[in-house]
């Protein structure tokens, strides 16, 4: 059981979402973050005040998955997030000690596995 963190360009968010859904990865969190990697700083000017935008907007995906889903998750984050330019982001994979589904109290792998994904699909 791993926690996969993917930090990608915000404009690639929709592509990453598509890739995750296509890989049947259906539980994740998404937050807006700011950060700095190797990309060039953007220069903006406001009435003669010139600034370098040192922090770039990024989207941070957190996906808790059972072991057989680790590689598909990484692949989806890379495929959806890649533009080939500097600043595409990073994927981090961490060991996950414990996971609990609040509704049922199930823990670990069964907590991060969607229940009857087929039922969910039919409802949509």
């Amino acid at each position: 059981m791993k926690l996969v963190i993917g930090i990608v360009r915000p404009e690639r968010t929709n592509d990453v979402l598509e890739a995750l859904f296509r890989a049947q990865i259906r539980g994740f969190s998404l937050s807006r973050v700011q950060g700095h990697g190797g990309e060039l700083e953007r220069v903006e000017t406001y009435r003669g005040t010139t600034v370098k935008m040192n922090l770039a907007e990024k989207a941070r995906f957190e996906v808790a998955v059972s072991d057989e889903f680790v590689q598909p998750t990484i692949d989806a984050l890379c495929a959806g997030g890649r533009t080939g330019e500097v600043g595409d982001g990073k994927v981090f994979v961490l060991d996950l000690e414990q996971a609990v589904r609040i509704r049922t109290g199930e823990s670990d792998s069964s907590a991060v596995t969607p229940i009857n994904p087929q039922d969910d699909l039919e409802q949509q």
Partner: protein
Amino acid sequence: MSGHIDSGATAWMMTATALVLMMTPALGLFYAGLVRSKNTLNTFMMSIAALGVATITWALVGYSLAFDSGDGFIGGGKFFFMNHIGFEAQPGTQIPQLLFFAFEASFCIITAALVSGAVVERMKFSTFLIFMALWSTLIYPVLAHWVWGGGWLQAHGVLDFAGGVPVEMASGFSALAAALAVGARKDYGRQALLPHNVVFVLLGAGLLWFGWFGFNGGSGYSTGHSSILAFTNTLLAPACTLVVWFVLDLLRDQRVTAIGAATAIVVGAVGITPACGYVSPIAAMLLGGLAAIPSYAFITWRTRTRLDESLDVLGAHGLAGLTGIIFIGFFAQRSWNGVTNGLLHGHPGLLGWQVVAALAGPAYAFVGTFAILKVLNALMPMRVTALEESIGMDVVDHGEQAYTDGEGAILVAHEGFFDFDRSRRDSDG
């Protein structure tokens, strides 16, 4: 020979000109609310640009091409570079020529800004500026000449009080041509491209309606009967469009939408624009209600096609303007307008020429705009790159953001940066 100047009419027309000028930033606000936040400034700037570009083209050549006598197709060069525009009464009015020029300038400005709705979120800003200069020189003045400057449509008795042909249909059908020539946004049809601030859209629509009282109420160039009629019809028609739009929304989805309401206000004001000084108040209310239907149907259908006419200039302005122009042919009433009757009041001849205007105006606007953009496309890049499009036009084309919080922004010290503190210390010492 100079006629009499009426101070009441002059005072009203100065006010009306200012009201119409305000419609352009109002339109910018309306459009900016309809795009994604990363394109807010670019979209607003396309309207702001018209305040500069279209004013200059109008002063140098556009006004003359529209309002000098010339031939049936286009005006002559008598007023080029603002020659022969002075304080004497404008023929047919009791206001100074210079004021007439300014009032008509504000029409050219808003019309040029309207077209931008078709190309937001992707067209390169520098190319757009050149397009706007050409459009406001080659398209708008010709159509204004046709209906107001002594052109062939006016000669055949076509009635267009405040700009169904040169403003509404011209912008709508030019927008269609521009959307086809520039192409769809890269995410169009793949992702939901949602409006980022619906409050802007509602406020923009409200300010447009407010300005429209100058637009329509000023198009009689007086404080006379037709001006009063136009003014009041500008209140009545959009109100009816608004309520009919509510009903259409309820029938479709059991919910009344805010963007629908904003759109309805614009559609109603557009519909009454050509007809406002020619039809009775109760007919204006009927027109307002009727105008909702084709625009509503078209806008609902358009979003399901590949046609990325992004902000529905054709649906809102082109079709509602067309509805209004045709409506005059049926409902014009001499007892209200003092000019002529339409079909329902015993004069069927008018309708035929109104239909001709509703075909010829859009045809010229579409073909002309398409030709301008095809020529520009051969000379310079029309769009930003796909990557730049995904970053957003504000950062790419303007180096600014609408909603920056300053976090992570590092001040860049300029070469020769003048340090006030140090110079004060030095002089103290």
